[in-house]
């Protein structure tokens, strides 16, 4: 179980400080598939990075399986079963796709295993497994390899940060199937930051985050229709209720 208690992230801003996250508390039960959505700049990525240890909270704590991991390093959290797929993953000169997958898996992978992870993200494995993860790959390709590394790591908690960003429609369809399979297996806790209807509809629960706070939380079928109604009106209700 993942428990976030009173998480606040404060950063310097013009004329003082600003809170990216404001006293966020929430619990995610094991093996739930939760989609985090909300307007840009609302604090979604910061929340994910705080869980992974990439951003330190100013206040509050993170409990994973009952253990307080707030003071643990990124690598220690990774070893305890937390993983995170970057929204904008880095490239590596000289490092092959298969190298990254093996680091993620923590063991040598057979050619077939490495290819399996790539197929799950819609990449033709034969063409990619021996390629360098460098500028010769497009943004969408690097992004899909990033998702494949999270799959290869096979952690109990997988966090994906806008997995759809930069991915073409055809590959996205394949990716949606992979997320659906993850959902149907129900053996991992999944947190996905997403704005895509097809991913949101897979969710057991939706978390709406805006202005650094959890604004709403509920089952996808109830919450999603309300979000869509707001969007259709041309102005986000969160913004109407908030600062807009």
């Amino acid at each position, binding site marked *: 179980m993942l428990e976030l208690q009173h998480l606040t992230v404060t950063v310097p801003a013009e004329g003082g400080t600003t809170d990216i996250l404001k006293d966020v508390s929430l619990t995610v039960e094991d093996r739930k598939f939760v989609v985090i959505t909300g307007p840009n700049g609302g604090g979604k990525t910061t929340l994910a990075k705080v869980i*992974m240890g*990439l951003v330190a909270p100013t206040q509050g704590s993170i409990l994973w399986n009952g253990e307080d991991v707030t003071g643990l*390093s*990124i*690598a220690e959290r*990774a*070893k305890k079963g937390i*993983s*995170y797929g*970057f929204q904008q*993953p*880095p490239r*590596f*000169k*000289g*490092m*092959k796709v298969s*190298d*990254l997958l093996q*680091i*993620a898996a*923590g063991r040598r992978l057979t050619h077939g295993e490495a290819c399996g992870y790539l197929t799950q993200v819609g990449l033709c494995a034969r063409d990619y497994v021996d390629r360098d993860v460098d500028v010769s790959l497009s943004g969408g390709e690097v992004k899909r390899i990033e998702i494949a*590394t999270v799959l290869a*790591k096979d952690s109990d908690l997988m966090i994906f940060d806008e997995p759809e960003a930069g991915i073409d429609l055809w590959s996205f369809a394949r990716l949606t199937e992979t997320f659906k399979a993850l959902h149907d297996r129900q053996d991992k806790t999944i947190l996905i930051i997403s704005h895509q209807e097809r991913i949101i509809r897979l969710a057991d629960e939706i978390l709406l985050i805006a202005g650094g706070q959890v604004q709403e939380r509920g089952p996808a079928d109830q919450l999603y229709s309300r979000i869509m109604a707001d969007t259709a009106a041309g102005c986000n209700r969160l913004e109407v209720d908030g600062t807009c």
Partner: protein
Amino acid sequence: MLNETQQKILQEVAGLAAIPAQGAVNIRTDGQKSFRRDSEHIHISSKADKDGIDIRIDPGTKAESVHIPVVVTKSGFHDTVYNDFFIGENADVRIVAGCGIHNCGDCDSQHDGIHTFYVGRNAKVTYVEKHYGEGEGAGKRVLNPQTILFLEEGASVTLETSQIRGVDDTKRYTRAVVGENAEIVIQEKLLTHGSQKAESEMDVYLNGAGSKTRVISRSVAQDQSVQIFYPRVEGNAPCFGHVSCDAIIMGEARVRAIPEITCNHVDAGLIHEAAIGKIAGEQILKLMTLGLTAEEAEEKILEGFLR
């Protein structure tokens, strides 16, 4: 024949656990020939006028290799050797050279290998050269290789040179004169640490119509080490050349890259790129999310970069 230290060095520079069962071989140890063998189409002979060997590869030779490693284990030993390669038309060969110095003493040990290649029409050569140093003595390990190449029409050469750790001082010079439709690819990998110095200078002359080159330099400078690169390409005919120098800088190291491209023909197309910088923080963070410590992540990044 070879003692334990010499065998270890041989393994490092030429990947040889033992003398290869096949192909031509010449092993030079502390300035002396310690083993030589010809193969069916590759003939090695000592030079009459100076120290070194001639390696003659018959036209059309295929699937035969040449190993010519050099091992220096005496402190204070200075060795200069001239090796000339005559590669016949349509041959397709792999040549493995390399030099390792084990210096336990307080005097500098030095090996200067001057290699000249005459590559015949449509011949294909892969030349692998690894430099390595070890030993706890205060004496420096110095390697100053020169590689000079003449490529005839349609010839193709890939140079894979690397110096990973242990060499205190190096001045490398590579010159290639490239004929019609010939191509040379130069891949140089370098890692310096401590207070080591490395300088690499290259001149590639694209003289023939349709000639091509790619120069790829990857280096890592750690601690207080210093590296300087001068890759120069001159296009004197319709040709294509691409030079890319990439360096990772760490600690208090310093790296200078001064690429130069000269077009003396309207259809010469030359490009250079040079980038020097530290390891991107995002790369380390990414690998840490996969369970590596910052140190392990750095090691993996360097390993890939210099592969």
